């Protein structure tokens, strides 16, 4: 997994609540058996017109927003489908962090496994960030994962929550599967326990 330590970037504002993973990447692009090339379909139906041309008024298409690494989105980002194609598409486009007041559970779990940091801020900070971006598109923030701080334009710092394990994995670029594989003895011990009923499925 890609490491994450600190990130300074402008914030692309997307002031919509409940942006679901069908918007992040529509289902018809999930027929692929690969993880690659999904950046082209990120926000596909908001991004392209009926003929497949980029809509100039959609922010992802604006030349001045290219290269931005942080998305500033509305509440409950990533709700709906469990598709990991959503964080794959977001990271392939270049996003490394998303700022919101809350994230849907499955999206958050998927994002953290792909080096994409969901940063939860208070409603007050959230509203202020939208104001700052509206006033100055160059307004940038710094995310420092080790200290769990978000530095606002002007230098004020706010803390954000990250669980210790996800933080460790992101800082070190550690892969969760590798960590579980190390626990094979515990898994074997569980499978051997007398009081555990293992539902081995066999047609009878």
């Amino acid at each position, binding site marked *: 997994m890609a490491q994450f330590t600190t990130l300074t970037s402008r914030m692309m504002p997307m002031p919509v609540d409940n942006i*679901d993973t*069908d918007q992040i990447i529509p289902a018809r692009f999930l*027929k692929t058996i690969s993880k690659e090339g999904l950046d082209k379909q990120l926000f596909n139906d908001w991004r392209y017109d009926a003929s497949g041309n980029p809509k100039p008024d959609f922010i992802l298409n604006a030349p001045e927003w290219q290269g931005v690494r942080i998305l500033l989105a509305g*509440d409950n980002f990533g709700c709906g489908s469990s*598709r990991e194609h959503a964080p794959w598409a977001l990271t392939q486009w270049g996003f490394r962090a998303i700022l919101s007041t809350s994230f849907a559970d499955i999206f958050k779990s998927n994002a953290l496994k792909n080096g994409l940091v969901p940063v939860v801020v208070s409603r007050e900070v959230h509203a202020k960030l939208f104001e700052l971006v509206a006033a100055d598109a160059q307004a940038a923030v710094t995310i420092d994962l080790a200290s769990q701080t978000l530095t606002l334009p002007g230098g004020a710092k706010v803390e954000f929550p990250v669980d210790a*394990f996800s933080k460790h994995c992101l800082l070190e670029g550690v892969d969760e599967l590798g960590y579980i594989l190390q*626990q094979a003895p515990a*898994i074997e011990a569980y499978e051997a326990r007398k009081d555990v*009923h293992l539902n081995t499925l066999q047609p009878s």
Partner: protein
Amino acid sequence: MSTPRTIIEKLWDSHVVAEREGAPSLIYIDLHLVHEVTSPQAFAGLRARGLKVRRPRNTFATTDHSTPTTPRSLPIVDPIAKAQVERLESNCEEFGIPYFGFQSPHQGIVHVIGPENGLTQPGMTVVCGDSHTATHGAFGALAFGIGTSEVEMVLATQCLLQRKSKTYEVRVDGALKPGVTAKDIILALIARIGVGGGTGCVFEYRGTAISALSMEERMTVCNMSIEGGARAGLIAPDDKTYQFLAGKPFVPKDAAWDAAVERWKKLPTDPGAAYDRTISMDANELEPMITFGTNPGMGIPVSGVVPDPSSLSDPLERDSLAKALRYMDLTPGKPLAGQPVNVVFVGSCTNSRMSDLRAAAGVLKGRKVNPKVRMMVVPGSMEIKRQAEAEGLDKVFREAGADWREAGCSMCIAMNGDQLQPGEYSVSTSNRNFEGRQGKGGRTFLASPLTAAASAIAGVVTDARKL
């Protein structure tokens, strides 16, 4: 005496493999369901690391999402979908995983075939790379959707790293009025708490109105837990659960069955157990529900009017509702009943089981689908298709002018050829009304099979009780 526990805590406690300081708990997974869309990258990951599937016999696959619902004698026309379906089958062969493939007489929607075959059992942890895995919670299982990285972890280790969720009691007491269904219970709950209302929680549905539901109806309720933000939602097992499962192909037999039922009887929440959160609803007050917007929380009684964004004080909420109404091209303050519809879809892991098909057929019998409406009825599994045909339901649908198709996710996810055209309105028995969910530019009203069938006949959104 030990502290009283909820069923959610009992399921959690019995599946903890290891706990380490500073890390989430390692949780054992009893049943891993696999489908074609969210698994190919996971199998590729196993191959790249040289790993095997730890317990292929606790893993089961079928093809449903990108699978066409056209007659099975026809080939899969879309070459990309065909490659994906074939890749699932070759992955299952390579890794020794049992599966119901595209041509299997038992193929169906993954959340339909699990219970239908008794793969889903009380007391289990069940995962699938699909957010509607909560469906299996109807059997008293802790069942939740996972991403593809987690699919790979479960294939390789049969375990997942998880943080304990909060417990959320959803009490529904009283009796549903005639014409009000399980779908209306869950749509009413989501309309009340919002699509993020259950984030971080597992729902336990209980109360007299929940106990009164059949197993199929319980699956409809649990299925949409994720639309209320909860990764899982469940109902404690009872005699209905055991009667449903008895004799299913994958459940234990004879003495092992008796022992299993004895184990399962210990699962229900202990008297006096505390929940982190609680909500109560009165079933007597519920009306048939329908959504008007672009998420499942935007729901109203079918007799209601489209809400007005200007009534909301929070600017982001106001803009989000206004955006939804622009997409849906609906006018605030106007009743939804009477809104013309182009398509009616009966199907999906929410409402594609026998009782759903019987309900829709009951409305359609002796009537005709409005000539302006295209109606699709898609059974949840090939098994259900055969049973429906044995009961003559297919004739009712066909004589009414509806299209009777093969099993699959169909127009719920619109990645298999079944979809809305831009601007079309549909009444759908599925679970998501997100922008473009049923086809780019398509507009979805979510409702029960009764409301869907009544709307198909009238050609406009219709309360089945007034047909």
